[in-house]
């Protein structure tokens, strides 16, 4: 029970009772509901990001705050997938905040792939590589080999290589792509945490 409350957003105004009701509304099985809740938060944040909204996480909190105020009634009256109601609220927010959306971005200096590196950036690159090596060690051998093999080639060679990999693993390229995406997602989160902890320690 305590673990579930830890999933609540830190700055949210959602009361524990309403949070319980949100979970119950998402799914009667509390454990599954908690997973759906975490995924829904991630997905809404992603949608705000794709719509180029500033502060996607804050807006996701706002969605849950708004739904929390109505959830007691909604869980008895709303028909259909509750996640669509959350999405509807998110859509309204996107429409409400056009001023907070960036309409233009300067390409100067932001195209980092084409920008020459400087000393500070070199140091950050070394830190990223250190963290990558640490995080790769945290992966199982199977995952580590899969992710390194998946990204080992570029352009046309990459396409052929991944087709071969999929055949060797007895799966489709699509499934392999999804599997690599999941491993890489976890790896990136680990690297982000590592960079943050090392930067704050300095």
């Amino acid at each position: 029970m305590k673990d579930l409350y830890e999933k609540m957003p830190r700055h949210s105004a959602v009361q524990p009772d309403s949070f319980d009701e949100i979970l119950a509304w998402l799914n009667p099985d509390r454990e599954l509901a908690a997973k759906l809740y975490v995924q829904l938060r991630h997905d809404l944040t992603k949608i705000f990001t794709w719509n180029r909204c500033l502060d996607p996480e804050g807006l996701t909190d706002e969605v849950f705050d708004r739904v929390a105020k109505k959830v007691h009634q909604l869980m008895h009256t709303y028909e259909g997938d509750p996640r669509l109601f959350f999405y509807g609220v998110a859509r309204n927010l996107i429409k409400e905040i056009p001023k907070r959306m960036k309409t233009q971005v300067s390409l100067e200096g932001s195209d980092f792939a084409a920008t020459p590196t400087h000393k500070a950036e070199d140091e950050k690159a070394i830190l990223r590589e250190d963290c990558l090596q640490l995080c790769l060690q945290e992966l199982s051998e199977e995952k580590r080999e899969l992710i390194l093999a998946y990204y080992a080639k570029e352009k046309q060679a990459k396409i052929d290589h991944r087709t071969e990999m999929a055949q060797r693993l007895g799966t489709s390229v699509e499934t392999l792509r999804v599997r690599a995406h999941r491993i890489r997602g976890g790896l990136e989160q680990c690297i982000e945490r590592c960079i943050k902890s090392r930067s704050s320690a300095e």
Partner: protein
Amino acid sequence: MSENPITEVKMRQFLLGTLDDIERQQIETLFITDPSSRERLLAAEQDLIEDYLEGSLTTADRESFLLHYADTPEQLQKLRITQTVREWAIKKGTAADRPIATTTIWNRLRDILQGRPVFVVPLAVTAIILIVIAAVWVNRRTERNHLQVGSEEIARLNDPASLRQTPPLMSIVVLSPLSVRSAEKEAEVAKPATGSLVELRLLWLQKEDYPKYQAVVRRVGSDESQTVPALYSDADRSAIRMRLPAHFLRRGTYLVELSGIDARGTVGPTEEYKFIVSG
């Protein structure tokens, strides 16, 4: 899975922000409610990022990309991390591709046989190759026999008549799909006692139910793989039941790919599950 899956082109247009509002919202709705569309969209986003990092986007796409993916310090940080992973993997890949120049078994063998009569070399090499082939063949044959015997037994255990009975020595393990349990600890199954069964309840979170399901069970790190062609959902249709005999399970990690099969025999969406057999 959605009845009209999103095309790769539409996904890329969506990610680059060049899709109209109606289509955008259709994709966002699928992203929220359909696990398979969600996974595909997130994977397509990765492909887009890779294409950018490889420099293979058109100028217009590159500009749209930067507007959407290099707009904030957090996004730039993410891009740099992806770049680091790629560069590291490419570096490792290049090293692995390089031919090994010294101290191979072949070199050592050649050194040993140097100065001997000419026919010794081909004979020795042929003998080594034959030994290796024989070892691989024996090993594969043993595994194949094990699987063949297993497949008939597993099919029998999972037919509807058998599923109605509850054997005394059976443990039940509920598994969530990997798509909703990425941050969770992997499910562990204690090695069952000889003669007992394990029933895996594979939670099915796709929108549609199917009359039949098919599973491919693979033991990670080996060639062992078992297709179970006919599986059925439980009474409330929330999970698919798969019974496996104890002797089928060995210590290690198993991956299960579960697909729905419609009335025409067409394979539908797939969910993946993972569990570890310990003890």
